[in-house]
């Protein structure tokens, strides 16, 4: 019994997701349908990718509010490179590099500048949204090549390409966090920064790195979104940071740092995605959807708190 309870606690997010799926499929038969499910996965993929990067940051006890703006900047950059140069490789590479550089900018201000992550990335959120407006002149960039829109829309062996990208990002992140020194340092830093530093860990570089990772995943999100819609909007990705944070928290990661997992984050993102989809299928108005989503987050955290006591 004790063991069963421990097991249930360990997989609580998964159980929650499962439960949610059952409830929705009882209410609306249209949910359990292979096309709908693949659709859910595709819709979840952008948030999931961003949330994976966000998990690294939150595990160290930080937060990254700038991911939505990074998504917009890198999406616009990719779109303009495609429309002008039509080099897929260059567009993707440069977008990822810019994402990483913005992450490094955030990370250095947090680690070397010793400014609170909330402040740094709040400022970054405004700055890079502004940069996007300046760069795009406030108008969407469209007219993108087929090569590029492939990324967001194609299916490989029946599986939507964004889902495949998400899976690959997940595998890399999982490996980093569970199998490498870097991953262990992320947990140590989030658990106790002083102890980590006095154990000889270069805490500044770990701190910087997690924001770089978050910047890169936001850029991947930017590429997927842009290619899926077929144009880059300067408003793209606004509010995404909150969805990503919600996914991380629903996945059981503590905002205080040091506790949580990447797999949990994926499940968290799925919970949000399934909920969105289910509410849409049930024709619930978007106004109510937002209330329901908020309540689910509160409920999940409350259950978590109860069990930890």
């Amino acid at each position: 019994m004790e063991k069963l309870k421990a097991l249930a606690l360990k997989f609580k997010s998964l159980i929650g997701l499962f439960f949610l799926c059952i409830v929705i499929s009882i209410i609306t038969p249209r949910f359990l349908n292979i096309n709908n499910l693949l659709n859910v996965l595709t819709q979840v993929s952008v948030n999931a990718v961003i949330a994976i990067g966000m998990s690294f940051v939150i595990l160290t006890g930080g937060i990254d509010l700038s991911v939505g703006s990074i998504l917009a900047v890198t999406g616009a950059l990719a779109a303009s490179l495609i429309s002008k140069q039509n080099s897929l490789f260059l567009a993707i590479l440069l977008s990822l590099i810019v994402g990483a550089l913005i992450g490094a900018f955030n990370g250095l201000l947090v680690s070397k500048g010793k400014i609170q992550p909330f402040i740094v990335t709040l400022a970054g959120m405004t700055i890079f949204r502004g940069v996007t407006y300046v760069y795009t002149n406030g108008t969407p960039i469209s007219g993108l090549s087929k090569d590029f829109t492939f990324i967001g829309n194609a299916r490989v062996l029946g599986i939507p390409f964004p889902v495949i990208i998400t899976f690959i990002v997940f595998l890399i992140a999982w490996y980093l966090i569970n199998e490498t020194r870097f991953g262990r340092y992320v947990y140590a830093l989030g658990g106790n920064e002083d102890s980590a530093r006095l154990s000889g860990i270069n805490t500044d570089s770990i701190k910087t790195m997690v924001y770089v990772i978050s910047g890169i995943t936001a850029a991947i999100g930017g590429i997927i979104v842009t290619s899926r819609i077929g144009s880059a909007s300067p408003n793209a990705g606004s509010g995404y940071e909150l969805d990503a944070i919600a996914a991380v928290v629903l996945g059981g990661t503590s905002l205080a740092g040091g506790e949580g997992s990447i797999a949990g984050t994926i499940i968290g993102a799925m919970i949000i995605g399934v909920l969105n989809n289910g509410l849409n299928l049930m024709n619930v108005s978007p106004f109510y959807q937002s209330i329901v989503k908020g309540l689910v987050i509160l409920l999940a955290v409350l259950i978590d708190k109860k069990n930890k006591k």
Partner: protein
Amino acid sequence: MQDKTPILEMVNISKSFPGVKALDKVSLRAFPGEVMGLLGENGAGKSTLMKILSGVYKKDEGIIKIDGKEVEINGIKDAKRLGISIIHQELSLLPNLTIYENLFLGNEIVKGFKLNKKDMIQKSQEFLKKFNFNKSPKTLTRDLTVGEMQMVEIIKAISKNAKIVIMDEPTTALTEVETERLFTIINQLKQQNIAIIYISHRMEEIFRICDRITVLRDGTFVGEEDIKNVTKDKLISMMVGRKLEEQFPYVEVEKGKTILEVRNLSWKKIKDVSFNLKEGEILGIAGLMGSGRTEVAKLIFGEYKKEKGEILVEGKKVNINSPKDAIKNGIAYLSEDRKKEGLVLKLSVLENMMIANLKAYENKFKRLNKKKQLSDCKDYIKKLSIKTSSPYQIIKNLSGGNQQKVIIARWLLNSPKVLIIDEPTRGIDVGAKKEIYDILNQLKKQGKGIIMISSEMEEILGISDRIIVMHEGRITGEISRKEANQELIMKYAVGLTD
């Protein structure tokens, strides 16, 4: 003294948690105007008993009487109403509020909806004066020293008409001067007929201020004694249940070549600190709190960046700018503050042990070899007899002594040449202390150089081969094991030189 009537009687108190019987028919009395020392190793049940008294836990069985009347304590509020007040190890004052705001927190004096600040300040002033505490009530609490905060905490308890005050290791964070002041206050409380329950690991303190003692062991009641009728040896054997022949085992080891040399180390108030350390030697650093001992350790370890001076390892000058550099050069440092600077409380025994040495477990794909980690971890659990249910146990759940052993293992995995250990047995119970000394002696035999910083006089005298004493950032004396005694160390520690 025997004829006095106790203000508090806890009789045959039992308490179980899932899987463990934390208390089994334990009794405790407290007398007005007296200090009752509550002793026992970690895990003996002191905290559980105090939590029952202060209303945090509910007892399963037993009777609590106050002034001879049986009472029920069902929550913190009940305890407060009955005049029971606990001074926590971790202080509960709000640093962003002033002294008077803290004193009246939850009991503010109001005129209608408006706070009556004038009255509160004036009343606070009276309280502070009563205890010769020369600070304005309007001082922000964060500007006080830890000792002063504790005073405010005590004053807060008294101002709420506490009749029984529980002090849980109150001197852990205090300087000598502050400790003296605390003892003065305790004497004042005694004169006001307040009963004090005093929990401490420090023998000297217990004999100085306790009138009686109660000893617990493994959740059972061992005995209550008049302090005049016990000796230190008897106390220790009551606590651990066996005679401790040698609490401070010393081994003679042939010393090797000089392994560490520090020349003219200076930083802030640290001035020209020079000394050397040989293989197979334990060098004790004594001194009062604030004398700069920990700073010297952290300078050698690269946590602070020295302004001047040189460090030589095995005769070669080394450049140390961070803990990482120090570790590379074979230096390890165990902080005096395990919770804040040693452990990662949320992580497991294994992860805490491995964290400083993960590089050794990487393969060429940067993947960590978990099997090897597990077997090495198990190895050290056995070697240092660490008591844990599994390598994956969260370290928070281990006792202080076992946590310390995990950190020692962390550094041994790095095979350091020099081990700097700051307050090696702080907050560790008597039995586990000896085990730590045995480990240090083992390392000494293996030819490691050990620097041991300690505030416990007996530990310094008992374990060190050589002792240097610091005062206000300088070394004021060096003493060999043979000539060392308490008086000599104190003389140097207060800055007197011959």
